[in-house]
């Protein structure tokens, strides 16, 4: 019991009390730090290892809890995201999704999360946005950014500060609903001039797989232009337009509605992907912490046994020196 207490105090007090060998008074005057450096074999003291084990254990618990929180949030939002897919399917059936359309003014809407610790999804969104930006800038083409979410804002501010038109953060303070998204869509449509809107987000396929996707929404003028040139949109002329005074008025309402529907779905899918990515990130983190804990336990036991052995050696050699 006393030995254990002495051991806890770093063993520097045990040395002079146990063996009266001439070498020991030397050891007793050395501080614990020099003790370790001088003695080499006994590497780290158990106190330090024990502290590390405590902090790693805490981290493991925290990341496990974060994983469960993310799992429950994912469950809540997943059904909504899957249901909202039906919102834009009729639009795509009618107007088609043409990411290769060539227009003068592109606006890239990047959707990201506000909080971190969610793996690499925000970086992939920003990478794709930058690639789109590069693809769509040339002599008579230009592209601007509209950023949703803190993480993408931080990354894009660094090198594309002048190209960012609008920044929106704290989207998930209240549960996501269509009204909020339609207000955002309204904001974007009013303040930003565009020919094509490209929305970059992470589509949720399953808890472990998220696909970075781009959804393209064209402005009414471009829709008319594409309709005349043929292709998918060429069939648009077969449809009779009812309501509104002119075709362009109805087309404008149509594209605005399309934008808000696609945005709603994109925001929901991105939120799902965020929670899923956070789940897997926290899972690998707690597994990593568990591995680290195992290794530290082994080190701790080895250190403990080594110190017991050296004490025994000291006692026994002291005793045998007395006898012989």
């Amino acid at each position, binding site marked *: 019991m006393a030995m254990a207490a002495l051991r806890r105090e770093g063993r520097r007090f045990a040395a002079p009390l146990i063996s009266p060998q001439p070498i020991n008074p030397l050891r007793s005057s050395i501080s614990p730090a020099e003790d370790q450096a001088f003695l080499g074999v006994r590497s780290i003291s158990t106190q330090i290892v024990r502290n590390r084990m405590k902090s790693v254990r805490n981290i493991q618990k925290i990341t496990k809890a974060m994983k469960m929180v993310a799992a429950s949030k994912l469950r809540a939002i997943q059904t*909504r995201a899957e*249901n*909202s897919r*039906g*919102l834009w399917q*009729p*639009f795509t*059936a*009618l107007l088609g999704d043409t990411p290769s359309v060539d227009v003068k003014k592109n606006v890239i809407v990047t959707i990201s999360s506000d909080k971190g610790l969610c793996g690499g999804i925000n970086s992939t969104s920003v990478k794709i946005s930058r690639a789109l930006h590069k693809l769509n800038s040339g002599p008579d083409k230009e592209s601007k950014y509209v950023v949703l979410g803190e993480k993408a804002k931080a990354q894009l501010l660094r090198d594309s500060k002048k190209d960012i038109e609008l920044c929106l953060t704290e989207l998930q303070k209240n549960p996501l*609903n*269509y009204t909020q998204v*339609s207000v955002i869509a309204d904001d974007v449509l009013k303040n930003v001039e565009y020919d094509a809107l490209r929305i970059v987000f992470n589509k949720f396929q399953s808890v472990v797989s998220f696909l970075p996707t781009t959804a393209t929404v064209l402005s009414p003028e471009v829709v008319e232009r594409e309709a005349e040139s043929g292709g998918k949109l060429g069939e648009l002329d*077969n*449809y*009779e*337009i*009812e*309501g*509104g005074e002119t075709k362009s008025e*109805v087309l404008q*309402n*149509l594209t605005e*509605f399309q934008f808000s*529907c696609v945005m709603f779905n994109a925001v929901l899918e991105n939120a799902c992907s965020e929670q899923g990515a956070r789940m897997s990130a926290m899972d690998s983190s707690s597994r990593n912490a568990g591995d680290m804990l195992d290794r530290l336990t082994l080190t701790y036991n080895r250190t403990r046994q080594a110190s017991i052995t050296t004490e025994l050696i000291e006692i026994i050699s002291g005793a045998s020196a007395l006898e012989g």
Partner: protein
Amino acid sequence: MFTILSFKVDMVIVPATTGQMGILPGHTASISELKPGVLSIHDGNDVKKYFVSSGFAFIHSNSVADIMAAEAVPIEQVDPASVQKQFTEFTQKLSSASTDLEKAEAQIRVDVLVALNSALSG
């Protein structure tokens, strides 16, 4: 918030901006804007009514109609008493509205409530 309903029916009546429009199989392809009103789905002798806030109806040439609405409420869930109350409140606001924006907002609300009222009674 969003439920996707997809089934085969005999006829659908949608509240287009040009009036109530009935859609039967074989209707010509059309895109119509909807105003707030009652959407009724007829399947045999079964009639289901929903109140839709606004949206679009696409009718494709293969007899598939897509109806997209921002909000759709089954008519049973609409409370007549509160509709009446809001109607009187907003007609009053409309007459006392000063700016154009306020007038437009109040007008929209009154239109929706008139449609709701007629949906409930008719």
